[in-house]
């Protein structure tokens, strides 16, 4: 229980720091507040206009007042409009979030559904040809950045074989499932490749140590079939670090796949943030980044909690130390 409280306190501290840093980030822009005024009103703003812009952003108040006002707006959902085009920031984020979520879910599903059977079989037949092949290729995949995988996939599936249009336009899963999956299949594979490699290595190592424990020998002596030993007895106690890694990646994938989103022209959170950085739409950057960081922090908290809850040993060890 003490562990849970400490973990929550830590999370709250990080959340406060993250929001504080992003809310006052506008003060530290190179070029100062003049840049913001020029961005908003164009060159040659009158002093009144300049003062108006500054006070709209809360930059004339002390930083703590600015922080509380900003937090209030953030929680209430009054996120304002973009600098140059006066579009609602909240709408932009709301439009991007599901695209990122789809991409994350498909990538994870693809990686997990392939990594688990491969890792189980590789661990069962350790040092076999299959094991060596899968471990080596996983190692190679970890050295393959997604800005290499994405063009290669695009070349083979959109240029050589014209199976998937490039760039494909996003459409909702419920309106047009075929177009939806066509738009998502290549990006998902690109994301899933390094995930697969990481998961496979993790699960294989844990599985090998599980398979050496006595209850596996007992199960074998009882005459349980290989398949049942692997998937019913050995898999579950070997999955803990895999679950943690999956959870950590949920947060990381939501905004961290900028390149894939940019290359395949999917308007996810990563692309929204980067395009906003490029166009100097600083308020949009603030909100998008805070949303991403909060997702990351909370998913990690949940994972740690679930981990302690599923595995009693973790609770005991942490209580002792």
């Amino acid at each position: 229980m003490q562990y849970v409280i400490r973990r929550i306190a830590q999370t709250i501290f990080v959340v406060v720091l993250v929001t504080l840093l992003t809310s006052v980030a506008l003060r530290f822009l190179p070029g100062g507040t003049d840049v913001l005024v020029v961005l908003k009103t164009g060159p040659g703003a009158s002093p009144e206009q300049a003062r108006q812009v500054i006070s709209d952003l809360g930059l004339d108040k002390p930083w703590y007042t600015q922080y509380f006002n900003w937090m209030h707006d953030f929680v209430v959902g009054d996120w304002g409009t973009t600098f140059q085009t006066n579009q609602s920031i909240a709408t932009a984020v709301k439009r991007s979030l599901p695209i990122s979520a789809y991409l994350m879910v498909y990538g994870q599903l693809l990686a997990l559904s392939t990594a688990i059977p491969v890792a189980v079989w590789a661990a069962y037949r350790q040092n076999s040809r299959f094991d060596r092949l899968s471990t080596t290729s996983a190692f190679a995949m970890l050295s393959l950045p997604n800005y290499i995988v994405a063009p290669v996939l695009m070349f083979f599936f959109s240029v050589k074989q014209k199976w998937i249009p490039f760039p494909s336009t996003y459409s909702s899963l419920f309106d047009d499932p075929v177009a939806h999956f066509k738009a998502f299949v290549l990006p998902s594979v690109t994301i899933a490749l390094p995930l697969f490699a990481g998961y496979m290595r993790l699960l294989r190592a844990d599985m090998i140590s599980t398979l050496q424990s006595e209850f596996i020998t007992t199960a074998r002596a009882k005459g349980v079939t290989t398949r049942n030993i692997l998937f019913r007895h050995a898999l579950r106690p070997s999955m803990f670090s895999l679950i943690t890694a999956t959870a950590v990646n949920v947060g990381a994938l939501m905004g961290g796949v900028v390149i894939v989103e940019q290359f395949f022209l999917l308007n996810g959170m990563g692309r929204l943030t980067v395009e906003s950085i490029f166009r100097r739409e600083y308020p949009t950057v603030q909100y998008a980044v805070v949303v991403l960081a909060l997702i990351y922090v909370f998913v990690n908290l949940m994972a740690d909690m679930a981990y302690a809850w599923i595995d009693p040993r973790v609770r005991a060890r942490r209580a002792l130390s």
Partner: protein
Amino acid sequence: MSDVKVVLDDDAPIVPLIDDAAPTKIRVRKRGRITKWLAITWLVFIVVSAIGAESLPYINHSCDQFDNRLECVTGTKANIRYSERPPAWAGFSDSPQSGEPARYGLMGTDKNGFDLFARSMLGARTSLIIAGLAITFGLAIGTFLGMLAGYFRGWVDVVIENLTNVLLSFPALLLAIFFVTFFNDPNTSSATTRPLWPVIVSLVILSIPPLTRLVRANTIAYAQRDFVVAARSLGAKGSRILFKEILPNIVPTLMSFALTGLALLIVAEGALAFLGLSVEAPTPTWGAMISFGTTPLRDGSWWIALMPAFMLFLTVLSINLLGDVLAQRFNTREAIS
């Protein structure tokens, strides 16, 4: 009686207890050794070629018909005659441009007619300088902060740990992009050549939190060891214990981690360059070369993007392999002692 003698003799060699697994281990190690030497050879080749990219005899710049060769080599003057030629060995691939020569060089040429092999070597220079400097500074700062946090604990630890947590809670690439645009002066960024340091500084910032965490954990583990307690009871100062007792013990772990970090930073630099945020166009880097190659890739000119990608992949793979070899070696040593 002979048993007693052995027990009393302090200099007696320690006899290994179990030696059953030895034959298979030797076989595995031998295979590892070959890949290790392949990796080292490749890295030496890349580093040497990167240093001498303008002058080494095996690097052909496709610039022979120019009077002022340097203009072409440095990428300021295009070489239209060789535009978009596939590699010499790729008999299956035709150039989208007509005219002689049909194919050129080991890796073909790009849109401006530059030899891609030569460009890749020039790109290796930029990528390696950026990633190498970044990991060096990151190691220095990360080690310092990690040792402070791990040895002194208390409020220093709390501050440093929370700062790393904050930095780690943003997606890494977004953070790097933010810092690069933040440090780049908006007025000069597109007109003149962009400086190297914003990229390096952002990569350093990116590499500090994980390194700090690693060093902190290791410092905590070593600070409780007997030899540190002994040094402290002899009256050694904090700085002496940190740098003379703890640091030498962390270095092996750090080295293998630093290699992995170098590979990650090369990839990260490539990512920034892919998004057009690294060094400006005439100076090649791997990421930017891949990025420029994606447009011709749609028309079937595969070599422009895939050849630099191949170089980057092999280099990152080699560094990762060496990091793995080091990690394995030091882990076993730790397990024995």
